């Protein structure tokens, strides 16, 4: 996206008010441009020279760097940007650009020679009369040409702009293509005559111009524009002649655009003349030029006619998603510089005839019109329309993620019964039933199904007991639900999702299980904090009967105990017929959600 640097104070003056930076950012945001940077001329220079950051002095002019859409050439200068924003803010109506009414005979002529077709076949021209320049306007005029050259002109390959003080030259003009040695002139910013071929050599060391040389360098003929006295106006797309150079005193401006792409040449010419006709004696008036090709065909340019487009209201409202009355849509379009000439009712359908001004070459299709309506209405004012979509079960999704993480650090997943025997859930774990924890089956067919587990420990220990022959170490885990009595539930009990993991080897592996706890916290984004701090997790000694005393700890997460880990009590190991030491961790993972 192109960026335009504009003096803040001049911009605010043009907008008729000052803005805070925040207010201005908001305006840009709504309009679809972006305040990219706020800087000063000196700061830019300092940055270029890699000087140390100095405090900017108070008197430096503040420059706004504004990013504009790549298809809005009319926003590439202060004049166009300010005009667009003023119209958007309702401060100004859409300008009407007109052609000076002069007879075809008194019109300036540009004769195109047939050789140009071999190198750069098109030229379009126009004249701005009675222009009042000052330093800022002059700079803006030059900058606009630079930006156009950089963007739509594709670094002058497609179009090159030449602007001249009309009072220093005399029509009719000719657009020719000649062998380089035959072109001889004093180029801009030089005092000596150069032959075109010498000039190309000379510019090879010119940082700014050398990148354009390739466009014509290898051609046996170079394009050139002459006036009736054989004064060279320009050697497009490289350089203008010094003779016709624009100054602050210039009143009448002759503009020529040579091109390999006629459509873009017209857009470029229109952009230059519409933007700067604001400074003409007759505001918004442009004097036409007749371009005559060797085949005798002639064209009057520029073409400032309005492009007419018929757009149904229903199309616009369907795109925007807001049903708006016709007059409101017309008002919104005006804010975007689109004239709605009349709205036609046809079979109960409102249709707009929209006039697209020459400044708005970006409008190609009714969808561009619909977008402008939406922008003027305000993207952020458009009511949300919710589409049908699916909600995830967060707990299940989270379990999936956690399971993958635990498997990644080397633990193998097991899937065990939810039902177990009463002994396995209590006495074999050295635990006592307080009669307010576990859901108890009334009619189990076998002792294996007496109790709904309150911990994943028995299932995991039974798995180890049945896999005694498996090579050590055994590293297993399970993510599953336990059931706990819960007075607040209609049925008096509720599930709780736990994660358990066990290490079994020649040594207990306590540090490995401790490390796994840290990893679980790491993947849940929990910081390790000092005891008593409720913003993360910490570990403190615990005293649970299933673990060896002094070899176990509680996991405190944001102030609540969510699990324990430790070396499984040797008595418990014996109860489950496990000959090797084991460490185990069990965590309530619902706490993380």
């Amino acid at each position, binding site marked *: 996206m192109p960026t335009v640097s504009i003096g803040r104070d001049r911009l605010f003056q043009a907008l008729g008010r000052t803005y805070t930076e925040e207010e201005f950012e908001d305006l840009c945001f709504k309009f679809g441009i972006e305040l990219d940077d706020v800087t000063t001329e000196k700061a830019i220079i300092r940055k270029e020279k890699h000087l140390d950051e100095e405090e900017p002095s108070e008197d430096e002019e503040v420059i706004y760097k504004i990013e504009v859409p790549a298809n809005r050439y009319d926003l590439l200068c202060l004049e166009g940007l300010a005009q667009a924003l003023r119209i958007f803010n309702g401060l100004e109506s859409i300008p009407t650009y007109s052609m000076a009414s002069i007879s075809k005979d008194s019109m300036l002529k540009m004769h195109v020679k047939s050789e140009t077709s071999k190198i750069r076949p098109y030229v379009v021209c126009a004249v701005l009369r009675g222009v009042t320049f000052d330093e800022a306007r002059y700079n803006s005029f030059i900058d606009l040409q630079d930006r156009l050259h950089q963007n739509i002109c594709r670094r002058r390959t497609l179009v090159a702009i030449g602007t001249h003080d009309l009072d220093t030259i005399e029509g009719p003009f000719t657009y020719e293509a000649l062998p380089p040695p035959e072109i001889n002139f004093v180029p801009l910013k030089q005092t000596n005559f150069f032959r075109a071929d010498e000039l190309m050599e000379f510019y090879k060391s010119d940082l700014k111009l050398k990148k354009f040389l390739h466009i014509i360098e290898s051609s046996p003929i170079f394009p050139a524009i002459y006036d009736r006295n054989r004064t060279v106006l320009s050697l497009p797309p490289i350089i203008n002649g010094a003779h016709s150079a624009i100054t602050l005193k210039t009143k009448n401006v002759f503009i020529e655009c040579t091109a390999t792409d006629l459509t873009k040449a017209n857009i470029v010419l229109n952009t230059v003349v519409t933007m700067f006709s604001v400074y003409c004696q007759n505001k918004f008036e442009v004097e036409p030029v007749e371009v005559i090709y060797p085949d005798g065909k002639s064209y009057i340019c520029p073409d400032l006619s309005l492009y007419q487009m018929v757009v149904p209201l229903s199309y616009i409202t369907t795109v925007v998603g807001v049903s708006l009355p016709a007059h409101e849509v017309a008002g919104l379009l005006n804010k975007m510089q689109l004239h709605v000439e009349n709205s036609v009712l046809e079979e109960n359908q409102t249709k707009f005839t929209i006039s697209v001004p020459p400044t708005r070459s970006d409008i190609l299709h009714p969808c561009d019109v619909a977008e402008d309506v939406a922008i003027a209405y305000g993207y952020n004012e458009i009511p949300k329309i919710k589409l049908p979509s699916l909600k995830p079960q967060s707990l299940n999704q989270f379990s999936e993620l956690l399971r993958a993480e635990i498997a990644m650090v080397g633990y193998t997943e097991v899937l065990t019964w939810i039902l177990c025997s009463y002994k396995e859930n209590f006495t074999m774990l050295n635990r006592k039933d307080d009669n307010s924890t576990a859901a108890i089956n009334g*009619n189990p067919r076998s002792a294996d199904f007496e109790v709904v587990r309150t911990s994943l420990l028995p299932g995991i220990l039974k798995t180890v007991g049945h896999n005694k022959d498996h090579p050590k170490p055994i590293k297993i885990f399970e993510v599953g639900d336990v059931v706990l009595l819960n007075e607040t539930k209609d049925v008096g009990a509720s599930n709780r999702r736990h994660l358990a993991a066990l290490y079994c080897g020649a040594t207990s592996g306590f540090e490995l299980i401790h490390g796994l706890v840290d990893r679980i916290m790491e993947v849940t984004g929990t910081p390790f904090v000092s005891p008593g701090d409720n913003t993360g997790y910490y570990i403190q000694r615990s005293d649970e009967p299933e673990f060896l005393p002094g070899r176990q700890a509680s996991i405190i997460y944001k102030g609540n105990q969510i699990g324990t880990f430790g070396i499984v009590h040797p008595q418990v190991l014996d109860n489950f017929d496990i000959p090797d030491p084991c460490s185990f961790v069990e965590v309530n993972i619902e706490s993380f959600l």
Partner: protein
Amino acid sequence: MAEEAVLGYLENNTEISDSGTFAEERGINHDEIVNIIKSLNGFRLVDAQDIKRERWVLTNEGKTYAEDGSPEVQLFLAVPPEGITREELQKKLKPTIYQIGCQQAIKNKWIEMGKSQVSRKLQHVDDRVRDALIQIQNGEAVGPDDINALKRRKLITSQIWKGYSVTKGPKYAPKRKKVATDLTRENLQRGDWKEVEFKEYNFLAKGQPTEGGCLHPLLKVRRQIQMIFLQMGFEEMPTNNFVESSFWNFDALFQPQQHPARDSHDTFFLKEPSTTRTLPEDYVERVKRVHESGGYGSRGYGYEWKRDEANKNLLRTHTTAVSSRMLYALAQGPFAPKSYYSIDRVFRNEAVDRTHLAEFHQIEGLICDRGLTLGHLIGVLHDFFSRLGMSKLKFKPAYNPYTEPSMEIFSYHEGLQKWVEIGNSGMFRPEMLLPMGLPDDVQVIAWGLSLERPTMILYGIDNIRDLFGHKVDLSLIKRNPVCSIGL
């Protein structure tokens, strides 16, 4: 030196016919030659063929006789021509030599053993035993009679001798380049990796086993089936409530209180928490009425519905208990079509065997919308099951208390060459939906199956206990392919 000898010899000769003689001729230790040949063979510089030979070596006893002479000769020489007393003779010799020497000398008829006097029968004897032993020690050939005699006396023993015959290998070179087994940091630092010749890998052996954890195969299948449901636009139901009331598990589904499934033989009823405390009372009233006397166009079951029975807590026998809660909740707001699924644990008070467990995972899908027909159900079942790889389906009329029409789903199993039942389906009865408050033009089509069944088919497991529970072999969990259904 040995390596140079082998490679150098082969440069001008086609074969080393025997590594043993080759070593001997060059005065090189044969073991050294063997090691070099093995190594050269590994790198294919030479082709080595095994030579195995049985050969005789002296036992320790044999070695002493080769040194000192055989006992019989020692004994013979100890007997002077004039004879000697036994006592004198015994004193002159070691006891073992005396003993063995007497036996052999008598056997050879060399001496006469009188009552007290020992005398020579011959004037001169040859020590053939010693000679034979020395010949064997020197690797010379010995007649089979002598071999047998010495073997019997345990003076020699057979030894398998291993050697090689060697020819040029496919990578033969007169001098071996240093070959490397791996690329090292030193190779990179020294830059000698360009010259390094690598030993060829043996791709007939497997690589080193990987380390790392694994997910459980049943849950890998669960994941894929979840993906299928999501792709079909189904939303997951919250099923993390194993304890359920009979009301939501049975009554709400228009399952009569005398239904055999509500028997304690099939269902785990809970001692603690034994009863449900709260139910939506007006809905309970409507359910009671529809069971007792019907309504909504139904005759009902015509029995006395008991609240106590509905309050009994149990471990849910199907996830349809959750579906009934979800549909009831859906009916409490303005109607919006929904597609729901769940995959979670259910409980049956059954004896455990190869194909039955007291716990398994139920997969359930349901669609609640206006204008649904049996055609939609069959269509969605085809879509769902073909994603599981079962595209040949047929449907059997069946009975299910809460669906009407009800269809059992059969799939043609190519492996078994027969139709197998894979699930159950149907349209929920109006007696279930209308008391909830759903609009009367709304239908619900639903189906269910177990997660274990397709998993067992997929992983070729025929005993469910090998798949799920604490008796599962951990190695089996680690060796499963990814679950590729639904791809």
